[in-house]
Structure formats: C-alpha cells, structure tokens
C-alpha cells in the first residue's frame, strides 16, 4: 500500500486517462468499532486486484475520514462498521463530503447493517451497502464498473 502525492488532480477532459490509472480507495473504520478483519481482507483483495488502498486504521471520526479522502485524492471511500453506529456515522460522512464540495467520490459501506437501514443510508448518498457474505470479487467488480 502506498501513499502517492496527487497534487495535480486531472481535469474532466482527462477522464479516459484517469480510467487507466489505478483506482484509489480509502478503506476506513469510522467510530469506535475494533472489528477490522473485514476491512483488512477487503483492502488486501482490492490491492491484489490492482487498486491503490490507503487504510485509516481504527477509530476515525467522520471529519478525519473526509479529510483523508480529500488529501489522498481517492476515487472511493469504503467504510466498515459492525457496532451498529452506521446509522449516525455513514450519513455524517456524506454530509461532511457535501459541505466540502466533494460530489464525485464513490462511497461504500459494509458490516453488520440491517436491510431495513439500507434505504436511508442510500438516500444519504452511500452508493452501496455490502453485508455479511459478500465476496471481495463482487466488491472489486462493483468498483471497477462505477469508477
């Protein structure tokens, strides 16, 4: 996993060029939850799938995640929560992204998230929620199709 300086962000016209570049992902653990098996396995799989992954480590506040995403100039934020705090923390990240004028990042969530919570999370701007049993292959495919 490498941290690359992307101070020259390509403009819209370079979109095709950008496509050929490695997809950059911020793997994040918002809140106090310490279950990091899932996020680490996903991060390793994305790396082996040819993406660049920056992992935040545990106990990140929504603002820390948003700042890391902007600073690292990622295409995707992939967050994982198993503590049940997704209902507050995921929408909070989306709210802060909007405040900072970031609209083009693909934001994904995973963990123990009841189906009935999914519509509200998607409404807040989370593109997809991946629950228990999702394969890393499905996640890679999803990201490749959307970025």
């Amino acid at each position, binding site marked *: 996993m490498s941290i690359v300086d992307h101070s020259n962000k390509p403009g819209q016209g370079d979109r095709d060029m950008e496509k050929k570049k490695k997809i950059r992902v911020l*793997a994040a653990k918002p809140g106090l939850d*310490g279950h990091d098996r899932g996020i680490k396995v996903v991060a*390793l799989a994305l790396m082996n799938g040819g993406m660049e992954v920056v*992992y935040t*480590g545990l106990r990140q*506040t929504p603002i820390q995640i948003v700042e890391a995403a902007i600073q690292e100039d990622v295409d995707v934020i992939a967050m994982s929560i198993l503590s049940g705090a997704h*209902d*507050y923390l995921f929408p909070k990240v989306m709210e802060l992204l909007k405040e900072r004028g970031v609209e083009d990042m693909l934001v994904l969530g995973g963990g123990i998230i*009841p189906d009935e919570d999914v519509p509200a999370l998607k409404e807040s701007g989370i593109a997809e929620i991946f629950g228990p*049993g999702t394969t890393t292959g499905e996640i890679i495919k999803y990201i490749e199709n959307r970025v």
Partner: protein
Amino acid sequence: MSEKKVHDNLPNDFEKWSESVEKMVSKRPERKPEFVNTSGIPVNRIYSPLNLEDTDYLEEVGFPGEYPYTRGVQPTMYRGRYWTMRMYAGFATAKESNSRYRFLLDQGQTGLSVAFDLPTQIGYDSDNEMAIGEVGKVGVAIDSLKDMEILFDKIPLDKVSTSMTINAPAAVLLAMYMAVAEKQGVSVDKLRGTIQNDILKEYSSRGTYIFPPKPSMRIITDIFSFCAEKVPLWNTISISGYHIREAGSTAVQEVAFTLANGIAYVKAALDAGLDVDAFGPRLSFFFNAHLDFLEEISKYRAARKLWATIMKERFGAKNPKSLMMRFHTQTAGCTLTAQQPKNNIVRVAFQALSAVLGGTQSLHTNSMDEALCLPSEAAVETALRTQQVIAHETGVTDTVDPLAGSYYVETLTKEIYDRAWKYIEKIDAMGGAVEAVEKGFIQREIQDSAYQYQREIEKDERVVVGLNRFQVQEERPSNLLRVDPSVRDEQIDSLNRLKSERNNEKVDRALAKLKDGAESKDNLMPLVFEAVKEYSTLGEICDVLREVFGEYQQINTLS
C-alpha cells in the same frame, strides 16, 4: 491377542492396507488430492496406534485433574458439576440490561456475562463526542457507579458469578462492582467472577485499547496484586484467544498467540515482584469454538497441556492451581451466516459440543441472528437451550474427556502443541508478545490467515452452507432488535444530574490522588476504588490516566 502382538504386525499390515487403498484411489479419487485442516495440518486417511507409538500416556496425557492436565483440570469434570452456562448480554441502558439478566437467570443460566458498549470499553462517558452513535449499541452504557447500581439491582452478588468483558478500563469497572457489593452488604472477598483485562489482544485483534503497552501492563499487575489480597476468588484476567480467532487466526495461532500473551502477563507480574503462585491460580483463559470439530477438541487439550508445561517449567509454579488452565468458551461469531440464519443453530450446537468435549469451564452459545443484529430474546433462549440439551440429553458429560485415546485426537493434540510451541519460540526470540505486537508480527500473521480463509471461500475450496452452496432466495428478517438512539440522551441527562448531586470537591480530591498515584509506583486499584465511590465518572477517571500515560497509536500492518 496382546497389545504387543498387534504392534508387531501393524506396520506391515498398515503398509499392505495403504497400498491397496492407493490402488483403489487411483481409479476412484477421493474428494480432494490432499486433506488439510484450518491450521494447515495435513489430515491423514486414518490414524492408528502407529501414530501414538512414541506417546508416553502418563507423561503426555495423564489423568484428569493431574499434570499436564491434557484431559481436564478437574478429576471428575462434568460428573461433578456442569460448566457454567454464561450468555454474554447487555445493551442500551443499565435498566434494560438488568431485566435481560434477570430473564436469563430465571431461564436457568448460572452466571452473568456483561457486555459493555464501546464508549465504556474505551473509557469515554456517554456525553463524549467520540461516543455519538455508539451509546448502548454493542452493550450497556456505564458512566458511573450509579449505572452499575442499576445494572445489578436485585441481583445478589454473593450468589452469582459475573464475567465482565472489559479491558483497558477493567480496574474502574471492577472497582464499581466492588462498590455495588459493599452497598449490598456483600464483602468483596466473597465476590466471584472475571474481568477480561487482557490488553495485549486488544492491540492485535479487538481494538479497545486506551493506553500504551507499558502503563497498561502496570495497571494489570496492580489488579493482580490487589485482588490476590482483597478479592481472592476473582479471576483477574481472561487471557483471550477468542478475538484472535475471530480476527482470522488459525487454531494453532489462537493457542500460540494467547499463550504468548499469557507468558507476557506472568513475566510482567514477576517483574513487579509478585509470587507466581499468588496470582497464577487466578489467571483464566477464553477460547473460540470454531467449525472443525475434532481440531477444536484437540486445541483445548493441547492448550491446557502447553500452559501447564510453561507454568511449571518456565516459571517454576508449585501450586497445582497455577498450572491449571481454566477457560471460558464462546462459539465462533465469524462462522455465522446472514443467509439462512436458522443454519446457525446447528453450527452453534456442534461448536458448543466441541467446547464441552474439550473440557470448558463455562460457555456462551451464540444466537442464530447475530450475523444480522443484536440477539433477540427468543434467539438467546434457543442458544441457551442448546447448552442444556448437551448437558442433560447427549450423555457426553457422563465420562471425563471421552475422546482421549482416539488416535486422531491424540495425534492432533500433539501436533497443535508442537506447532504452537514453535510460534511461541519465535515470539520469545522477538522479545515476547509485547514486542511481537509492536512489530506488527501477530497482526500480520492473523490478517494473512483471514485473507487466506476468505480466498478459500471465494475459490469454492471451502463450502459455507447457504452462502456459497445450497443457496436459496430468501427474505431477510425484519423487526430486528435495535437500540433506541435516545439512550444517549437519557445517559447524558443522568450524567448531568449526577454531576450536580455528588460532592464535586471530594471527586476532585480523589481524582488528584489518582493522578499522583499514576505518576508514582503506587498500586492504582485502591485509588480507583476511592474515586469510583465518590461517583467520579468512568470518563473522568480514564482522562486522568490518559493525561499521565498517553494513548496508544495503532500501527498499520497493511503495507
């Protein structure tokens, strides 16, 4: 025919048999070219007395209740008394958790096991900004002695044993429990129970650390020393492989990393000047009951033997109780599927049976809905009934260690012992478990195994029933148990009330004394106890310690 004669002919007979089977297999292959268990140990087609030729029964297996305790820590095991049926529970407020505990006790549960919410586990009060969204979610929110009084309301603390899953702030929660006991008129030397108090696996696997390793180890040895004198029946630590396994380790790694942590605690206590036989008998363990039935049974037997050997030979413990590995077991949460959740009842039953056949002292059985949400009362009841069926109906409890002498189980017990021992030697060479965690060695080993396991599922080499085979279209259950977000407001209201009602001068004085103590070498336990009794909050106490000790920064092992 005598035993001797069997052995004389056996190698030849075995050879002949193997040749004929190989011929058959070359025409009709077995399901896989080679069979390997989750720890990477090759599994042979059969095991026979040939595998145990070099085993000295008395030295390596022995009798239950006797060194090296391979067959169990008590001579009569479940013929004397069943294991403690202890369901991990707690959510929302102290009041709601109290009613769940009383329900479980009414259902025949024999011990309590308290789940705290994450802010409590990380030493934040419910009004801390870091706690937003987390209050009452994965356990009960405890901010002060006031909450603890409600949590154990009408539960006589001299009659139950209570296990508390609390690590970094274990001293504070134990002090609160002692204070509740005193208020009930129960002397603290009568208290029975366990605090998890195992910080090393928090750095490697579970994540609820606060302070760096050095001061954390000091708090732990302070607790050992305080309890040896004042709370002698209390298990001062539950050295936990459970979370190491949940994080993705193999069975061998679970044993190795848990015992390496155990060695680090014993060393720290000896360095602090304690006598191994003063604290050794109160060390307890906690293991995971995973899917591979016979591997798990062998794992518990190997772990028991390994700990006894380490305590006797490395640390010179003399008291037999210091050599006995007593452990709690929980079935493996990570093996539960969100798909076809009823299948989880079956998984849990086999896992629980492995723990019983492995000689566990207490057991938590997971509820079928735990891959979806917090367990509902109905699901918890089935999980508890699973233990009661094993205890009362299966008959496996009527003889001690019934799988002893199985050629396979004995061979595997030895194999796990040897492989775990090699890992421990490697960790010793790094300077011990603290150093191995600081180098990221343990974390990397675990994450590599987790990745490997997931790869096997995705490549269809590992079948998970209902997930990658035998799938059905199904509706996900609704009406799951969830915690009302207003719990945080309630907690904040009562925190504010508490702060206006208590004697704040006394609180300040107790906290100042605690700070002085933390800066010196004094035992922190009596100081924490005083602060708790003045209704200092958990957050206030941990903030004082944060100020003196600093906070642990996790290292990144994904590079």
